[in-house]
């Protein structure tokens, strides 16, 4: 079956969507059109600013997380492509109020390169910048440590939430970096797809699956995963992902975790909730406590049918930061 989307010119999807997003949240967001980035409508002085960004197509990431308690700016690239160095540099210098800027970067070559360059440019302009590299995707980890390493996926939401809260509380840049890097080291994700997504304007999904297969370890840019496995009930697919995540983090009886059950795009809330139940019960069966969880579309891959599960080791400080108030288009409490 042909895939279609609500699109005008495929080349204008991102700027049109940015305009539409900010029109929906005039009290929260401000759009800077060229170079394009989004900031809070009401800048927060006297704190380290937190900036993230990356390719579009993952909405609500990152623009949906701009607001009090989370990001100060988000920098969207084209669909699945890094924002440019100057976009990131412009956002970085714009939100600096003298306390410096924390950049949260997902581990992809283009993002890493452009954020590094942006940091150098912003530093030249007198802004103190440091970075946290988010690399949580188990699927792209190689035993020999070669290659580009684990990709950055849904754990970035937890990093943005917790670092955002810590920044709001007045932490300085070195403390934020220390906290954020330890957090990333304790975070792992893995995704599974039932059907690939399609680029805006494309009539066909990026790839096809046999009727009895699912794609394991998919990324969020339409790449295929690390292999196929048999389609199976949700309990079994959940167990497949959870087993790997628990092993990778070395979780044990008595440990607590933060959980994200994330829709990759087209997977329905009923399915997500049902998988969340399975995660809860399976972790309980291993004596692992779910301290908090997020269930919904947070880091999507266009209209891919699939989901990812993220586990992050929890401790009291992290739970307190999770619970701290947040007020953004896509996350508010």
């Amino acid at each position, binding site marked *: 079956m042909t895939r279609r989307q609500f699109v005008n010119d495929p080349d204008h999807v991102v700027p049109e969507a940015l305009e539409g997003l900010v029109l929906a949240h005039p009290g929260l967001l401000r759009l800077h059109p060229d*170079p394009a980035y989004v900031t809070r409508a009401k800048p927060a002085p006297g704190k380290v600013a937190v900036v993230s960004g990356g390719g579009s197509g993952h909405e609500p990431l990152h623009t949906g997380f701009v607001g009090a308690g989370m990001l100060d700016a988000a920098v969207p*690239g*084209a669909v699945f*492509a*890094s924002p*440019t*160095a*100057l*976009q990131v*540099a412009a956002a970085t210098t714009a939100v600096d109020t003298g306390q410096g800027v924390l950049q949260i970067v997902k581990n992809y*070559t*283009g993002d890493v*390169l*452009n954020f*590094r*360059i942006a940091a*150098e*440019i912003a530093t030249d302009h007198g802004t103190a910048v440091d970075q946290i590299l988010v690399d949580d995707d188990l699927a792209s980890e190689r035993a020999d440590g070669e290659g580009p390493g684990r990709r950055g996926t849904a754990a970035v939401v937890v990093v943005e939430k917790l670092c955002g809260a810590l920044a709001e509380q007045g932490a300085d840049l070195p403390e934020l970096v220390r906290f954020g890097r330890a957090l990333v080291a304790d975070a792992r994700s893995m995704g599974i797809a039932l059907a690939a997504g399609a680029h805006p304007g494309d009539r066909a999904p990026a790839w096809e699956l046999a009727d009895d297969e699912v794609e394991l370890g998919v990324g969020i840019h339409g790449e295929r995963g690390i292999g196929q496995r048999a389609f199976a009930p949700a309990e079994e697919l959940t167990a497949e992902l959870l087993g790997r995540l628990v092993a990778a983090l070395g979780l044990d009886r008595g440990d607590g975790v933060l959980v994200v059950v994330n829709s990759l795009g087209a997977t329905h809330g009923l399915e997500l909730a049902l998988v969340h139940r399975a995660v809860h019960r399976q972790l309980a069966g291993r004596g692992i406590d779910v301290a908090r969880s997020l269930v919904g579309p947070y880091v999507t891959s266009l209209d891919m049918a699939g989901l990812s599960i993220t586990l992050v080791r929890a401790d009291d400080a992290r739970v307190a930061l999770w619970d701290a108030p947040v007020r953004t288009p896509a996350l508010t409490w």
Partner: protein
Amino acid sequence: MNASDTRDWMRRFFAAFDREQQALTDLDRRSGDGDFGANLRFALGRARTALENTASATPGDVLDTVATAFLHTGGTSGPLFGMWFRQLAKATRAETIGVAELARGFADATATVQRLGGARPGDKTMVDAMVPASEALAGASGSLDEALDAAAAAARSGAEATADLLAKRGRASYVGEVARGVLDPGAVTVALLVEAARTR
């Protein structure tokens, strides 16, 4: 070399790229994802417009305008060329510059690209043309014209040599042996750029 000479350099570079754009795209198609030509065209188009609308007192001003255009560009070549031009601009902020400034500028710029991209000579990237060009300028003892001739020849032979290399960095590294025999489009572009600096 003053600001006006530098503008002429850039004009010749734009013209050379226009001639070679299709060939460069084909090279990236065989070894990468085929968007190299489009990325460069975006950057150079922006640079051209910006230069028309900006006054520049020094070669560095001109080069910085070009740098900004590249830093507005996606792909891997956009930001790396952008930082190359940006670093070169920092070393060329005198009204008139000579071999010494250019040599230091090329050395700094090439070092920046290597630091940011992590590529070493032999990895089949733009660095394979940047390093010999930079070394030729550093070793030059005669006139600016002679130095630029030497640098252009060095960049070109560095670019030609990428055909035999196996890519270790960038998208071409994903395809491995398949790209053996294919020139690296980034390195070829560096050759065009340095060749365009010559006035004779």
